[in-house]
């Protein structure tokens, strides 16, 4: 199957000016209220907004919390008479509590939602339609894949706020001890599966029985990250028209057998499974595994002096590749609740969140990746471990169109549940064939095929 990659530089094609103007043109507006559902860009966002607004997000890291706090402060400064109430919730259980809030009419006005869950909210019609607030120029400032992830039926249901992806962190000392030579520092030199296996085997040989070569970040809702291996092997979850499962396939069998071998060869800790309470970064932090697949937002946690990684020097390298390179679409959109009392304010804050300046500051603070073309074209100025973030930034170019399209289908929340259930069984030694068949039937049920 053919996959084209988003090259963040290639898509700039002269829109920089337009995007920047659009973002700064927060005053070029037609005054007066327009009914919601009007044409794109018809609603004023430059008019004066007042009132209070609740914005819920999960406390992913101290960098994110600081980033949101700063955005709140700056927004309130610029818009006197507004108050943004930041509501932090734990990531585990975030969406079930949002759901209960929506059912009981106590939901926050704005909330954060990952690209794998947004489809569910769109299809239930509980989100604020923000189409009227965005002009064509404003929408075109985003990388198309991300803007597409928040649109459905030609309406926009939120804004893509940031993205993140997975790469590998490893302990230099452990690699030396295991006699592993040069580690890829260019994307095109990334390990093949075979090379990666050699590295894992060398580590296995050099480690005591209670330690393991690496850990993978497929825990809980991260189960969909298993698909990175599927895409690398040249497969996909869904057919090209997104209407049918593309499993079972030889690529899927190859990916599943490869990932199952992590357990049989004792390359990952036995409890580095889907349904565990231990995430991949913990195995690294506890020095149970000298190498781990993690999302870029975890870099500050690893780099933290007091509570971070205590095993000496560590560095970053790319995901392995097989037929092709691929990585997962992480990251989040910001959406509004349909029941909000103050849609204008909600939209204004949403726009402010994704203005170039705010996005740049936020991504730098939270060590995450931007969704605006202009920012994607440059290397942001990351305060912690810019060397590591450079790897993640390049890795993000392997989030293929197919990955984006499949990850953001409305039914993905159900598909994600299926993946969690079936992969847990599969990785625990269930037969590959029946696991793939079960995933396929789960997908079929989810998309109503």
């Amino acid at each position, binding site marked *: 199957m053919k996959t084209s990659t988003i090259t963040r530089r290639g898509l700039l094609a002269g829109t920089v000016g337009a995007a920047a103007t659009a973002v700064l043109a927060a005053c070029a507006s037609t005054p007066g209220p327009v009914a919601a559902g009007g044409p794109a860009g018809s609603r004023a966002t430059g008019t004066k907004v007042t009132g209070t607004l609740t914005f819920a997000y999960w406390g992913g890291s101290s960098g994110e919390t600081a980033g949101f706090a700063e955005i709140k402060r700056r927004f309130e400064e610029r818009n006197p008479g507004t108050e943004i109430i930041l509501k932090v*919730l734990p*990531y*585990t259980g975030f969406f079930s509590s949002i759901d*209960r809030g929506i059912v*009981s009419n106590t939901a926050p006005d704005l909330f954060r939602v990952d690209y794998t869950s947004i489809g569910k909210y769109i299809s239930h019609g509980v989100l604020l339609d923000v189409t009227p607030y965005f002009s064509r120029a404003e929408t075109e400032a985003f990388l198309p894949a991300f803007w597409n992830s928040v649109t459905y039926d030609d309406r926009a249901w939120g804004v893509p706020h940031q993205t993140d992806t997975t790469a590998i962190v490893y302990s230099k000392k452990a690699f030396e001890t295991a006699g592993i030579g040069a580690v890829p520092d260019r994307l095109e030199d990334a390990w093949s599966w075979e090379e990666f296996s050699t590295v894992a085997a060398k580590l296995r040989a050099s480690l005591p029985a209670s330690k393991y070569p690496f850990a993978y970040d497929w825990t809980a809702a991260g189960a969909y990250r298993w698909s990175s291996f599927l895409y690398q092997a040249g497969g996909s979850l869904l057919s090209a028209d997104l209407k049918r499962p593309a499993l079972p396939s030889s690529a899927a069998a190859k990916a599943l057998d490869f990932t199952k071998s992590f357990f049989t060869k004792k390359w990952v800790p036995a409890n580095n499974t889907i349904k565990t309470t231990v995430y991949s970064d*913990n195995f690294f932090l506890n020095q149970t595994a000298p190498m781990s697949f993690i999302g870029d937002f975890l870099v500050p946690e690893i780099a933290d002096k007091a509570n971070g990684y205590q095993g000496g020097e560590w560095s970053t390298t790319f995901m392995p590749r097989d037929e092709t390179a691929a990585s997962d679409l992480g990251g989040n959109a910001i959406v509004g609740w349909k029941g909000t009392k103050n849609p204008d304010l909600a939209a204004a804050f949403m726009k402010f969140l994704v203005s170039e300046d705010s996005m740049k500051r936020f991504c730098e603070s939270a060590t995450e990746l931007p969704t605006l073309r202009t920012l994607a074209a440059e290397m942001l100025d990351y305060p912690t471990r810019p060397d590591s973030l450079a790897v993640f930034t390049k890795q993000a170019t392997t989030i293929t169109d197919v990955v984006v399209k499949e990850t953001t289908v409305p039914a993905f929340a159900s598909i994600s549940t299926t993946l969690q259930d079936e992969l847990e069984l599969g990785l625990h030694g269930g037969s590959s064939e029946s696991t793939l068949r079960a995933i396929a039937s789960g997908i079929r049920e989810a998309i109503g095929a």
Partner: protein
Amino acid sequence: MSSLTDVFEVGSGLPEVARTPRGPKRKHGRLLWLRLTVAIVITVVMAFPLYWMLLTAFSTRADLYAPGLHLWPRHLTIDNFVAPFQAFPVWRWFGNSLFITVMTTIITVICNLLAGYAFAKLRFRGRNALFLVLLSTMMIPPQAIIVPQFKLSVGLGLYGSLWSVILPESAVIFGVFLARQFFIAIPDELVEAARVDGAGQFRAFRSVVLPLCKPLLAVLILLTFMGEWNAFGWPLVALSGNQNQFTLPIGIVADLQGQYTSNYGAIMAINLLMILPIVILFVAFQKYFVEGLARSGLK
């Protein structure tokens, strides 16, 4: 059941040992030593997890994850108490736990006392039938009705406030039995004497009966307090939408376990904070705990 209060009566150990006949019965002495040894071993095994919690809470992360077995602290630290307090509104959780628990206890105890009294001392039509109806609610597991409970709390507009926990959790029955048993033992003549003085039922209850039931009150308050302080299932659903409304158990499971997965020092520090009030109450009022738990079997 027979009087339980002396099951844990202090001072029943040593003086008796002094009274045991010595002399030819050497075998008895050996048996005593054997029993003492076994008792100490069992007690140490039972106490050890709590000691481990304490030790973990005051240990550095490096020590916790160091290889090998270390039974006592090598570096004591209070960092584990500092970090979670900075990251999460722990005192707020503590306050919520306290508020919910105190409110629930007040409502529950008042309702149970009144109903227990009526079933023990007042004659009215349909008393037995009503008692059976109440009894039948004992068989409804709270977890079996958690979905309708949620819909109900949304319907009543309670969802999203602490009262969404307080009110449903105050609908309990076990205290009615305890209270009824207790009141039956109070002579009718006492109550009737008060009534003859022209006092109404409520006044008779308040001025004559209530002063007599301090032990009952203590048992009811302590058991309800403990049950609610430790409550988990329904609060997990009801309070999940707002971090500032968490109780301590919810905070530990939802927040700390989620974000501090490997930082067991911090988790155990908050765990310690959570069990401390109950442990203190237990040590102070052990007699009533024992009495109440044995009578109701509630846990």
